[in-house]
């Protein structure tokens, strides 16, 4: 059995702390409310779609390791536990943690303290700024960084670990958090984008009994942007490599409200006539979390048998274009 199956999904998003809230927001198809975020020294606030506070404090936050951890870790832990819910905890879990911005709240706080007076900067905060911090405490771990298409590199690495039998289950996590500095940076790059935070988790496994009825069918080559292949060319190459799907296939694209940033992806898929789902209009620009949400939504749509297959298009902002396809899995 060399097939790679989806064995669980989890999501924390501006719609709430679980997959049910995520699904409801997609079904409603209305952009979630925008929350202003103060930008020091400026009258005009930044526009964000943050994760709302949980209705009740999740029990897992009582874990000692999570006491000082960043929101990224909280979101990721919640989504990961949801993806593993309803089954015995596997003994050999692999975790591939994908990040673009990382723990910006603690990085901001620590550097502000260090500039003010390095002698009093908090030694407790600094370790939490490290990219690898949210992924600690899991038996097999890899932290990948890159633009949002990196999430599909994470899925491919997870599939490789499973085929090598290095893990029973691989959790591939994309997570991001909001603070004003990150929102400010995005504003500088894309004025129309609305920053959001949260996490998405795809649990991969090989045991048909634990599958949600979805198989990872394909991931394209990671098509880097370079002087030899610009972003539009990479987007078109990804589309061509992904090939034609079955009739009625769903396309989960990464288009938002930014004409300039969306241009290459929009052009690459301009002849697409099938159904499509654009999550950024609903949830905002969640960077790596948004990439994870695209995969969660695609796999979930196939699991619910709403579509015969689902393609994911990820044209990252400054690294690469990668596509993927999920199809139904039937155990014969």
């Amino acid at each position, binding site marked *: 059995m*060399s097939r790679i199956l989806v064995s669980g999904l989890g999501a924390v998003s501006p719609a709430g702390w679980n997959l049910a809230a995520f699904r409801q927001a997609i079904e409603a198809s209305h952009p979630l409310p925008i929350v202003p975020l103060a930008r020091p*020294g400026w009258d005009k606030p930044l526009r964000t779609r943050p994760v709302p506070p949980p209705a009740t404090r999740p029990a897992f936050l009582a874990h000692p390791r999570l006491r000082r951890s960043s929101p990224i870790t909280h979101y990721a832990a919640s989504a990961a536990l949801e993806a593993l819910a309803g089954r015995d905890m596997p003994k050999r879990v692999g975790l591939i943690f994908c990040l673009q911005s990382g723990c910006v709240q603690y990085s901001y706080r620590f550097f502000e303290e260090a500039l003010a007076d390095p002698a009093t*900067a908090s030694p407790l905060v600094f370790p939490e700024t490290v990219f*690898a911090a949210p992924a600690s405490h899991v038996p097999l*771990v890899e932290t990948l960084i*890159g633009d949002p298409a990196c999430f599909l590199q994470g899925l491919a690495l997870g599939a490789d670990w499973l085929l090598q039998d290095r893990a029973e289950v691989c959790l591939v996590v994309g997570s991001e958090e909001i603070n004003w500095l990150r929102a400010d940076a*995005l504003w*500088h790059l894309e004025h129309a984008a609305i920053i959001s935070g949260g996490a998405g988790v795809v649990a991969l496994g090989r045991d048909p009994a634990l599958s949600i009825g979805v198989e990872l069918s394909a991931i394209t080559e990671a098509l880097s942007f370079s002087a030899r292949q610009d972003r539009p060319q990479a987007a078109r190459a990804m589309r061509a490599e992904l090939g034609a799907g079955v009739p009625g296939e769903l396309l989960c694209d990464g288009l938002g409200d930014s004409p300039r940033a969306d241009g290459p992806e929009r052009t690459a898929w301009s002849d697409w006539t099938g159904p499509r789902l654009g999550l950024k209009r609903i949830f905002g620009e969640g960077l790596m979390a948004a990439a994870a949400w695209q995969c969660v939504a695609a796999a979930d749509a196939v699991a619910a048998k709403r579509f015969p297959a689902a393609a994911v298009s990820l044209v990252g902002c400054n690294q690469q274009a990668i596509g993927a396809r999920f199809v139904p899995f039937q155990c014969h």
Partner: protein
Amino acid sequence: MKFPFPTPPSEAPRVVVTGAGIITALGVGWQANAEGFRAGRTAFRPVTLFDVSRHRVKTAAQVDLPALPPMHLNPRQLSRLDRASALLLLAAGEAWQQAGWERTDNLPVVLGTTSGGMLLGEDYFRQAVRTPRRHRRQPTRAFHYQAQTQGRMLLDALDISGPITITSNACASGTCAVGLAWELIRRGQAGRVFAGGYDVLSEMVFSGFDALQALSPTTCRPFDARRDGLAIGEGAAMLALETLESAQRRDAAILGEIIGYGTTIDLHHLTQPHPEGNAALETMSLACRSAQVTPADVDYINAHGTGTPLNDGAEAKAIARWAGERAATLPVSSTKASIGHLLGAAGAVESIICLMALRDQWLPPQTAFETPDPACNFPIVRKPRDARLNVALSNSFGFGGVNATLIFRRWA
């Protein structure tokens, strides 16, 4: 990695290194660094990149950055070149030239870093909190501080293309990058991979270790009974990895062979290793199993050896438990005593130090070591000396608990 993967070869191919580029505070290039280590030099000096007047510690292994050799970057890219990219490109240029690889459109690149273009991020922060607000150059900083832009700069500088994978497992990042590259080739997913690590000296990270009181206010002396902390450095290293068959087909000069890799996570604490070195022991054992060697076969260990009481104590116990009786005669050194802890670059740089030692048959010394710690039951290499080496092992451990080990064999 394109999925579905190609069928793995029935027998994993041997992986050799045909190009190695290195830049540290000891100098630029293989030769300058090899001479520095063989002469037992250290490279610490007062930090001038940022103000350290209010820090406990005021020195680091800061690189004198030379001008870049001619590459394929356009004037706009050159004007935006940050320090991290410059370090990476200097190492990459040397490795590329040494490997003699031709331009290609599908060369996987695997990089390890902890902070990418952090200096640009710091500049972004300073300007963002300044009043009155100014936006000039902020979009460029927001775009270019991310590690993937250094990776793209590398592609363009060498006029190549290919997938970039960036691993950020804290101080094990460089070792993990080389290990990932090794696995890609062994699994038949690539015939050649360009891999390494880089990190710059930044105020944020320097302040972080200073705040943790992890920096030595005296001299970084790993495994010494009176050790009192680490020293930070900066640098980069890149390695050209390919199958033995590919290297022999084109008659390439082989610098050494990578024969094993192992990685584990220490389920203990965010910044502290398990005091008994449990995960370090496991990662060395895993690497040995994949290399099909035993501790008796290993001739030298380039230790993680940061110089902090907790790290070195745990690593010493792990080496003692792993090596058993062999520990008493197994030469160990931490080259961080010469060039500092290069964080995400450390594992890649130390890989090249192992290759230097294997190729030219000498033991890299640990320049500072006075009082042996009774917990360390292995000999520390205190002076540079010639030795017969066939197999070398390199350890890297990081915040978050990732441990990684690579094993190299002499090519003769």
